[in-house]
Each structure stands twice: as C-alpha cells, then as structure tokens.
C-alpha cells in the first residue's frame, strides 16, 4: 500500500483527485501542513525533487517523487479505482483525459474571471460556455444508461471528472443552466455525497446563482505594478483565516493556481514579455494609459456612457496620441464591399500594431461614391507606421492629422467615430470597422 506526503495548498481540486483516491484505496497520504505556497515549492530542496515547482506533488515513503495530479492519484489508487481489465483501464484513461482536455479549460476560462483571477473577456467566456455545454451534453448522454463512468463502481474516471467539474458546479452551473443535464447532475451529486468524497471536499453546495465577472476583486488581486509579489503576500495572510471565510479562501486558492498553470501572465500593459523585444512600440515609454483595459471597456460596455468617459479620464497625453485620417483617392473607390476589403486588408497588414494601437475606420456614402476616414489612438507622439517598414503599405494613401486631445472638436470627432453615430461633418455613414 502506497503511503507518503502530499504537497499542496488547501482546497486544491487537483490534489483532491489524489486525496479521494487515497480514501478509497486506504493509502496513507499525509498533506504537509507546513507547506506555504510560493515558498516551499520554490525552495531548492523542493525543486530538486520536483523541478517544475508545481503542486500537487507527492513523495512516497519509499522515496518516489511524483508530480501531476492524475499520476499521483494513480500511484495512491488501487485496482478497483484503476480498472483490472485492460479495456476498463483504457476507458478510465479516456475519461481522465476528457476531464483535463474538454472540461477544465472551459471551466477555468469561465470561472476564473468570476473569482477575479483573470480578466473578463466576453467572447472567451461565451466560447467557454459553449464548450462546457458540449462536454456536459456528451457526458449527459453517456450517463443516461450508466450509473458511473466505467463499470458499475466508482473509478478514478469518476473522481477525475467530478473534481474538474467542482469549480463550475460551485460557481456557474446554476439550476437553470444545469437542468438540461439531469444525468450528469445525478451522477455528480451522488459522488460528492459519498463518504470518501465528503471527507476530502467537505460539504459541497451547488451553485444557486451564476457568478459573474468581479471587476473589483480583479483589481484588488491584480492592482499595482509589482503585482505578483503583492499577490503572494496577500495569499498568505488569509491562509490562517480560512475557517472563518471558507468562500474567500477558495478564491485565494484558485488565484494561486492561475499564475502557475496558464501562460497568459502578462505585463501590466498587456504585452507578453517575450514579445517585447521585437515590438517597435517597446522602445516608447509605456505611460499610464492601459490600451487593453480601454479596449475591453469599448468592447464590453456602452460606448457613449462608459467607454468614452473612461478614455478621457485615463488618456495619457504625454505618451499617446490621437490621429485623424482620410483616404486620399476617394474617386478610385467603387463598390462599398471593395472599400471594406481595402480597410480589412490594411488592418491585417498592421496587425502587429494591435497591442498598442486602436482604430475606428468608417466608410461613408454608397456604391461608386464613397470614402474612408477614421480615428486612431496609439502609443507614441508620432505616426506609428514609421516604426516598422511592414506597416507602411497603406498609410501613404491617407492624409494623417494629429488631433489635440484637449480640443472640443477632437472630443466630438472621437465620439462620432467610436460610436458610429453623429453627423461626421455631413458625410453619410455607411459602415465602420474597428481595429483592436
């Protein structure tokens, strides 16, 4: 029988997979209570055994060091959990992979913004919901005629899939959403009420109201420039208060999970570090204006009442500039869709500017009588296209005028071009395209 020490922070659903398996197999797994996330797992001693520095990690009493939650669960499991026939083993493996590949990414994308761990992105969240629906649909159909996933008894397959669904069932799968998946619900509720599960995860309450993005918490957790260190400091404080604040505790934990698992760690201005060296904008001072944050405001909120006030409040005149452009050869423009393609083509060619630039290009008029003009905002005080020869294909076909951010006319022009409404100096608005 396997025995040993498990390193993890409390409430880690990945560690649950191993701990529940140990409850079933009777393996003696002790959680190292002196473990401090961010310290213990960065110590030389720990890294020598587990070079990734990730948790959960397991050290058996015979000295075997195992990382990756599913592997640890395998190590401490027994034949009942792992399947005795090869066919069953394969099926169990199948569901373990299903849990990690089909459920977990969608679940994290959806739930993490609700806990303030990651930034909210409407498209990504909607996509994640669809993925979740698909995975739950498959599971629901499968469980129609089955009690458990493989064979007639609880196996590691059930443990792995249920653990990866914990977050979603806790925060976002409210009764309305989950009513379509009665078979999955039955299976899940049965599992979390098994004594072996309860001993590890405690009393579990299914989500009542779908959680939504918590901007305040996000700001709290990610505020300031030296974000990461502060975060870790904050992590440790509440660790002692877990008992009084079980919910918050959970969130902290999840948050800790994030930085090590996903590669989306970005600088405060939203530029991945590795790319910085290649980005011509990197040479310019960053300033205080957060282009990404503004784009999110613009995409997710009302333009006139929220995004524009946000822009004028945060705009950094010293390091950013606003430009107006107009197509030089409107007489050559024919059908509107061709004009559209011209604009799309330009957007594609300057795609690398995206991180530090924003633009709204509008097409006015109708077939055989149309023109293009637009408003751009980017980092730097000069024409951004001069920074890179790849960006210079289109810009010469336009006249460029730098706008004074303090002038009233500028506010009107920017408002018209971002909201796609207004009189545009008498031109008839046909359609617009946003570069963001």
């Amino acid at each position, binding site marked *: 029988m396997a025995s040993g020490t498990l390193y993890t922070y409390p409430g880690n659903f990945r560690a649950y997979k191993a701990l529940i398996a140990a409850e079933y197999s009777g393996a003696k797994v002790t959680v190292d209570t002196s473990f401090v996330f961010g310290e213990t797992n960065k110590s030389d001693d720990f890294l020598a055994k587990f070079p990734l520095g990730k948790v959960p990690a397991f050290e058996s009493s015979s000295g075997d060091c195992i990382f990756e939650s599913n592997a640890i669960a395998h190590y401490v499991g027994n034949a009942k959990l792992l399947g005795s026939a090869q066919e069953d083993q394969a099926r169990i493996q199948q569901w373990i992979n299903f849990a990690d590949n089909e459920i977990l990414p969608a679940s994290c994308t959806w739930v993490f913004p609700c806990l303030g761990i990651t930034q909210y992105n409407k498209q990504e969240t909607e996509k994640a919901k669809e993925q979740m629906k698909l995975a739950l649909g498959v599971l629901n159909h499968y469980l*129609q*005629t*089955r*009690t*458990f996933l493989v*064979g*007639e*008894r609880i196996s590691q397959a059930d443990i792995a899939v249920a653990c990866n669904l914990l977050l979603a069932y806790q925060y976002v799968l409210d009764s309305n959403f989950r009513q379509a998946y*009665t078979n999955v*619900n*039955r*299976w899940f*509720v*049965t599992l979390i*009420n*098994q*004594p072996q599960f309860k001993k590890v995860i405690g009393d579990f309450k299914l989500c009542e109201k779908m959680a939504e993005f918590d901007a305040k918490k996000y700001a709290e957790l990610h505020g300031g420039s030296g974000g990461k260190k502060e975060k870790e400091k904050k992590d440790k404080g509440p660790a002692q208060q877990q008992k009084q604040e079980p919910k918050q505790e959970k969130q902290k934990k999840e948050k800790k999970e994030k930085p090590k698992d996903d590669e989306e760690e970005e600088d405060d201005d939203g530029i991945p570090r590795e790319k910085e060296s290649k980005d011509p904008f990197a040479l310019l001072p960053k300033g205080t204006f957060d282009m990404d944050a503004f784009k999110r405001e613009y995409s997710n909120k009302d333009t006139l009442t929220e995004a524009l006030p946000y822009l004028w409040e945060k705009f950094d005149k010293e390091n950013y500039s606003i430009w107006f452009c107009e197509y030089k050869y409107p007489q050559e423009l024919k059908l509107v869709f061709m004009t559209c393609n011209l604009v799309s083509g330009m957007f594609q060619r300057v795609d690398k500017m995206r991180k530090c630039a924003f633009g709204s290009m509008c097409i006015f008029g109708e077939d055989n009588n149309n023109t293009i003009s637009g408003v751009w905002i980017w980092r730097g005080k000069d024409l951004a296209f001069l920074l890179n020869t790849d960006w210079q294909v289109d810009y010469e076909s336009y006249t460029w005028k730098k706008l004074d951010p303090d002038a009233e006319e500028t506010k009107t022009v920017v408002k018209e071009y971002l909201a796609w409404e207004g009189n545009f100096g008498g031109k008839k608005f046909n359609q617009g395209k946003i570069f963001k």
Partner: protein
Amino acid sequence: MAEAGQSIAALAAYLGVKAGKVTLDGRDKIPVVKGKTGTRRGLVSIAKHLVRAAEKNSLLGKTIEDQSAVDQWLEYRVSQLDSCQGDKELTVVLKELNTYLADKVYIVNHIMSLADILLYYGLHTHFVGMPYYDKENYMHVSRWFDNIQHEEGVRQTLPYVHFLRTQIYDRMSH
C-alpha cells in the same frame, strides 16, 4: 409476484447470517420466522432483524431522516410491489420508480441501503422476462437495477439481467 421467502433467504446470504425457518402464514402468505428471541412477522421486520443481527445497521440509514425513508421504501416493496396483480399495476410501480430514480443513484441518500436490496430482489422476477423495449422505457429503473446487481454479493445465484448501453428505440420523448 415476488416471493418474500426467497428475498429473505437471499438477504440472509448477502449479510452472512442465518435466516431461520420461514413459514408462510395464512392466505396473504405473510412470512413468519420463529426464533429464540421471539417471533417476527412480515418481510420488513424480518429483514431489519437480519440486518441488525449482521451488525450492518448502516444499511438501515444513518440519520433519523434516512431511517424513515428506508422504512418507507421497505413498506413500498410490500404494499405496492408485492401486491401487484398483473402487468397494469406493475406498470404503475415501474413508472413511479422510474420518475423517482431519474435524479438518483440509490433509493435513499446516495448510498446503498436495505431499500435498494429488497426492491432489487422484489423486481428481479419482473426484469428477467422484460423485453428490451420496456427496459429502455424504464431507463432509470434499469440503470439502477444494473448497478445494484453488480454490488458484490447481492445477486448470488439469481440470473444476471442484461441491459443495453445504447438506446435502440426511437422515442418522441427525448
């Protein structure tokens, strides 16, 4: 109609205790066991006695709520299932169970209890001859039944009932 005597014998074997001699009393064939500690009358009291004798009280439910729920379903086995006269009444029972089991794995509170075992024994004769069409019709009962018959030591010498994992009949109601 399910034979109470067989259920008692099977339960005793599952629990690893001796059932004693079962006699059937009167026109209603109520099982009676005369033991050293007294006479027990009726399937429910005999079954509960056997569980206690085997010191497996958890099968009777842990909390008071669970205990009364188990009792209720034991009563259901005797008063509803065993009293079925013909297919029509059985259909009512199966429909009822099917609805009840739609969101459950076990009859009472996520864990196997005496209610599961006795209902399984009681339904077994009906399931043995059941066409696949009906098994699929009572999908949730079938799923539950299949699960219970795989529980170690429950089925014993009873014939294994086969179930299909995939649906083969088209139904409007899905």
